[in-house]
């Protein structure tokens, strides 16, 4: 057959080495007669509809991208002890799982290997675990039930983890996030702070040395709370460290209570 040089016959097949068997039957085009109703060609009819869907998704996606700046926190600082680590949202359920007593400590294997192994192994081997011919979810209650339960567990774990993280973030004085700036550094109270023993433990810029950082402390304590801590001490802090007058003490506490920067960003999610 092969040598046909007039260029009109497009059916010529140059198979070359004829040890490769030339197949005459068409590769696939499956017979869809088993499906009732209308079928249509993939190109262009069906693909057009697929792409219409893609257009809708793209517009929504780009709206999301334009509306939300991708977060970028402060440069990694291994010595930052106040940072609340949290994995990306799709690992949260695993993260939460490891907080259970029976899945941590001596039983950590349950949390890191057994449960995820069962989950992912089960998914991987699903076709062999559920060998029945029936495809409708209602007609195979066991596999549907297990799937729904695991799904529910994942959703609940993710939600609990997220909720817990939010609560922790809220209760933590924001000073530990590096975004917090000193509020009103021009206030005379800052001078009072620097002239007292406070500065030795809490740092020149409230950043915390032996003592904790005081940045954003206004989120956690009121003026009265702070006065009380100054008077009575807290943790390692002894009572009566403040050497100034009562008037100055009041001023200092009021200034510290204002340390709740409103421009605090979502850098810690």
């Amino acid at each position: 057959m092969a040598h046909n040089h007039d260029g009109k016959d497009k059916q010529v097949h140059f198979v070359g080495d004829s040890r490769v068997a030339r197949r005459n039957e068409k590769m696939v085009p499956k017979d869809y007669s088993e499906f009732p109703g209308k079928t249509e060609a993939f190109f262009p009819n069906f693909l057009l509809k697929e792409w219409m869907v893609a257009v809708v998704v793209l517009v929504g996606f780009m709206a999301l991208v334009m509306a939300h700046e991708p977060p970028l926190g402060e440069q990694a600082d291994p010595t930052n002890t106040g940072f609340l680590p949290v994995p990306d949202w799709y690992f949260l359920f695993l993260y939460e799982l490891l907080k259970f007593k029976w899945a941590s400590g001596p039983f950590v294997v349950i949390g890191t290997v057994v449960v995820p192994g069962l989950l992912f192994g089960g998914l991987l081997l699903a076709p062999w675990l559920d060998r029945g011919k029936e495809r409708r979810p209602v007609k195979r209650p066991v596999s549907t039930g297990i799937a729904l339960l695991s799904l529910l567990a994942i959703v609940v774990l993710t939600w609990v983890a997220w909720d817990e993280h939010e609560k922790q973030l809220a209760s933590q004085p924001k000073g530990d996030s590096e975004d917090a700036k000193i509020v009103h550094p021009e206030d005379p109270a800052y001078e009072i702070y620097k002239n007292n023993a406070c500065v030795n433990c809490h740092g020149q810029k409230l950043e915390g040395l032996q003592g904790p950082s005081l940045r954003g402390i206004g989120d956690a304590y009121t003026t009265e709370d702070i006065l009380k801590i100054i008077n009575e001490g807290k943790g390692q802090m002894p009572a009566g460290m403040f050497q100034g007058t009562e008037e100055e003490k009041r001023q200092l506490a009021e200034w510290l209570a204002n340390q709740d920067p409103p421009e605090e960003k979502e850098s810690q999610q």
Partner: protein
Amino acid sequence: MLKAAYEWLDKRLDITPMWRDIADHEVPEHVNPAHHFSAFIYCFGGLTFFIVVIQILSGMFLTMYYVPDIENAWKSVDYLQNEIAFGQIVRGMHHWGASVSIVMLFLHTLRVFFTGSYKHPREFNWVIGMLLFFTMLGLGFTGYLLPWDNKAYFATKVGIEIAASVPVIGSALATFLQGGEVVGAQTLARFFALHVFFLPAALLGLMGAHFFLIRKQGISGPL
């Protein structure tokens, strides 16, 4: 001109049957959202692919500015996001696209599971799909470290500690991921290599196999 070039190629390579096979195969009604709106659940696979294409493209463009080095990684991300035109958009596409692709992939998996499409004869394609799922999670995990901000750093630290608690192979696995004695320069270089070369290569190979099998076996019938 184009036609002549096409025919020249076709005579030598016989490419017509290849695309004809793809273009002309009949798509059944039950997966076509134009016939039944509920058939949109069959779109999630295609949409996952679409988002993955966006991920690959935006990732390629991001590496034009990004440097995988602990001194410069954060600075370069900060620079490309804030100083370069559309930097925020391109990084945003990659950042949010990662989440969106996981969502789409998850919905696609649910569709396949609840329509029982993983059953005979499509068991193998389900396995490939699950491997794709793991690859995507791996891409998410390795990509999270790259901007080298506090969130990235501490999340990775936790991740590596979890890996270390796996019995027998745990410490070896953690050392492999970490590269050095701390989560640091060597970890970043390694995660970059995994995120940009190894995992995408696996992803592309698996996707090729996934699509080939879909074409070979056809889509599963209506319920």
